[in-house]
């Protein structure tokens, strides 16, 4: 019983605590590869502390939606961090929901962010919001089909069950349909978290902005919450990807030593995937807005192939 209470708290602390570090790590590596020194890995923390200390400027055209959105975004991502297996494949709260709930909780956060982008009455916000909806609508079918492929392989949409089944029968991971699903999910992850080549997280320029365009009007605590939520989203999606397709090392139960090992391996795995994101960002330029559907279409085709091959082989 105590473990069932401690583990969710531990999980939330890991996700909340380490998500800015992942962003800082990505920025640092990227800077080093571009022969810059770059800001410290802990810069996102400094930014958050600074922002939390500040007051906020609120647009006079905006309404209560604007002030509620940061909380709703933050909370929905926090709920997700309780449902995803991070260190142990046994998530005590897994009865609350499955992967479908997680996808729709992300949709909840996005719904309110896009509303806020329209709330201030500036054209930049609307532009960002409209593009965000475009990218996410294209990404969602691919995402759901890839998760369905995984779910049909292990007969569960519950992330705890998925992870523990794949941990115990790792041979399933060599299934070609799972490899296709992994490829599709990787593309979706890049699109959903707004990284190059879909979106450029470093600029606020009109031509490139999708995700950043929506956050333009936030300041102070609001900006901090939204920024933190978006870095948590990145970490959570990475965690889902890592723990489904590379479950080795994750604790099967709730023992202390198991959790320590799991944590060490978790850091290594997330670090490796963050590094891969950097490599992708370094090797591609941002693609044109109306080329994005082609990229996500590729992900969709991959996921359809994944599920069809699963059915045909069975």
């Amino acid at each position, binding site marked *: 019983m105590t473990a*069932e209470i401690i583990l969710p708290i531990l999980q939330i602390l890991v996700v909340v605590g380490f998500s800015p570090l992942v962003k800082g790590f990505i920025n640092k590596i990227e800077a080093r590869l571009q022969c810059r020194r770059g800001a410290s890995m802990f810069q996102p923390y400094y930014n958050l502390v600074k922002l939390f*200390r500040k*007051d*906020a*400027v*609120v*647009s*006079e*055209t*905006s309404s*209560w*939606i604007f002030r509620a959105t940061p*909380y709703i975004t*933050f*909370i929905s991502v926090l*709920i997700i961090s*309780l449902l995803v297996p991070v260190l142990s494949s046994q998530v005590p*709260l897994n*009865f*609350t*929901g*499955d992967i*479908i*709930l997680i996808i*729709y*909780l992300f*949709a*909840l956060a996005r*719904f309110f962010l*896009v*509303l806020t982008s*329209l*709330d201030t*009455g*500036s*054209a930049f916000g*609307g532009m960002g*919001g*409209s*593009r965000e*909806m*475009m990218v*996410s*609508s294209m990404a*969602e*079918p691919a995402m*759901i*089909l890839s998760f369905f492929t995984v779910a049909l392989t292990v*007969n569960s*949409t*519950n992330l705890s069950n998925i992870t523990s089944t794949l941990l115990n029968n790792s041979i399933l991971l060599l299934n070609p349909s799972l490899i296709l699903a992994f490829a599709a999910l990787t593309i979706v992850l890049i699109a959903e978290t707004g990284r190059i080549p879909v979106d450029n997280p470093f600029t606020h320029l009109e031509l490139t902005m999708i995700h950043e365009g929506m956050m333009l*009007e936030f300041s102070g*605590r609001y900006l901090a919450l939204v920024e933190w939520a978006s870095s948590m989203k990145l970490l959570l999606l990475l965690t889902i990807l890592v723990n489904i397709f590379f479950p080795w090392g994750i604790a099967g139960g709730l023992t202390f030593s198991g959790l320590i090992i799991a944590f060490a391996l978790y850091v290594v795995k997330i670090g490796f995937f963050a590094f891969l994101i950097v490599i992708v960002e370094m090797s591609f330029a941002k693609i044109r807005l*109306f080329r994005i*559907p082609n990229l996500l279409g590729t992900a969709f085709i991959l*996921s*359809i192939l994944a599920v*069809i091959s699963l*059915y*045909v082989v069975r």
Partner: protein
Amino acid sequence: MVEHTSHLFVISIILYFAGSLFALCFYGWQRVGNYISLILAAIASCFSIATAVVALSDGLTIRLDFTVYHAIIKYNFLLDPVSTYFILAISVIGFVAAVYSIGYTRLYVNKCDTRFLGFTYNIFLASMLLVVTANNAVVFMIVWELMTVVSFFLVIYEHENPANMKAGFMYLIMAHIGAVLLSVAFFIMFAYTGTWDFGFDDFRKVGSHMPLIYKNVVFFLVIIGFGIKAGIFPLHLWLPMAHPAAPSNVSMVMSGVMIKTAIYGFIRFYFEFLTPCPPWWGVVVLIIGASSALLGILYALTERDIKTLLAYSSIENNGIIIIGIGLSMIFKSYNLMALSSLAMMAGLYHLVNHAVFKSLLFGCAGNIYYATHTKNIEELGGLIKRLRVTAPLFLVGALAISAIPPLNGFLSEWLIFQSILNGFHIPSVIVKIITIICGAVVALTGALVATCFVKAFGISFLAMPRSDHAKKAKEVPVIMLVSMGLLASLCVFLGIFPVKVMMVINSVNIHLLNTNILPAITSYDWLHTKSVQTNFTEISPKSATVLGLMLLAVTFGVLTLIKPRFVKKIYETWTCGISPEPRLEYTATAFTRPFKTIFSNLYRPQSEVRTEYSVPNFFVKSMTYVSDVAPIFEKYFYSPVAQFVLSMSNMVRWVHTGSIHIYLTYIFITLIILILFVGK
């Protein structure tokens, strides 16, 4: 018990008709007549809600047979769990809409005859209840026609507007084509019953000994006949015309429950009359559902008239319900009864969810129209500060329809996904692949719905008002807000306490499919909250909501601890140095522009820029931008059909000479042919 319940039902029908007649009595006092009829409608709805609740909780099957001396038609009615489930949905929406109308009809005082609205409105509600309870094909066709005709009069209520008349006639014509096909279906089946009763009880026995070829014919007749009412693509044309033309309180009922009577028809035919069905029927129904869902939402996306947008979205939601029904048919034809029940549960759950949130959204659209006198969302904006109560109500509806947890749309979408995933039990590989691709379509549809309703809410309620209409808007009468609040709380209730709804649907399933899956799909977990469980996973919206509230409290507490005095400076939006104006805001057209480009094969977007110069080629006086999507269904489906009908009638025109002698000869020849035919 049975007797009392049947009395409740009869009382409610009598009250509806009494209400409609009372409305006509008050010649001088139109408003009084209207109010009395609406109040009677609300009371009658309470009676029918009571009927449904009693009948469903005890799982009763009630027969009502009215024997008329030497009657040709047998007036038989049956209230089995399927009927009572629909009665529940219809009367809940009917009650809310009646209360809402008390406020909304003030819009028409001194403009139109409000007594007439009360008169037709009551008959409309009663006819829907009779449609879902009729147990005889003749009675069914009579009340089905009554429903169509009465709703036609409601659609053309504002008949001064020629567009409304056109919409009404389109509806009437298409509904009658559907009715003709349904009568043919009934006649084909009647040929195999061996009695003259036309009773549904005889039709229930006919499925086993009808030849397959005739069953297939009936299948297609029914799918088109009811499909027109359900608005499936490409038979949807009347729906986005008629629903916006009707007054909002009527659109609530039409979109919320009237189009669901078609689903009722599907269930009666495919699960009772024509059983056993071959698997490909279910596949056809599934594909029709999926394509209606996707096309419906794609057209809703580009729409700028808020009520047309909602009407297209009704097509989409009906598509999702039909997906549930189709899956249930597929599973049933492979004898996977538990899965068939699961899919049926998903479909019926979505049916009642859609009834609730679509009525809520139509009601809020009515509030917008009441306050601003416009339905064009490009002219709205900033309403959140003017319609302070309507805005959160619309937001609840928009979230629910976008399947955002913890509201009700999410649960039914989740059940649909679970049913689709369970498609792997189907033996045929092709059918399996079709089901999973339908899953992808549902996912895409879900994402597009969110976009569509972000647009609908964001453009009409947020930022600055784009016109004087919106600027001068004032909140609507309290009674309209109260009734909408009722629906909004239903959205929350149906989302957070799904097990209660499933218990109700389960009694339908026990009756229809002889399977009780309730014990299998609900369970208690270690926190003793009841969750919904399938063979894939489980979900507990209640626990998710509680978690969310707890986390919100903690976050808020921590933030207040860090910085107790959090000051919000109010300042105008930065728009690169010029002062913010409504002209700078993003519009609905701009918001959906990326989708128009991506799906340009479907939309065939047409746009035109006209420029007027005061000094040619130098000083622009005014610019006009016109943009629209091509009506490809009208162009490639309806006009060829219309052309064909016209040319056919041209060909047989020479028969109509106008001379009575020739006509008498025709009658004579027909008579002789008939005698020869019968004599043989």
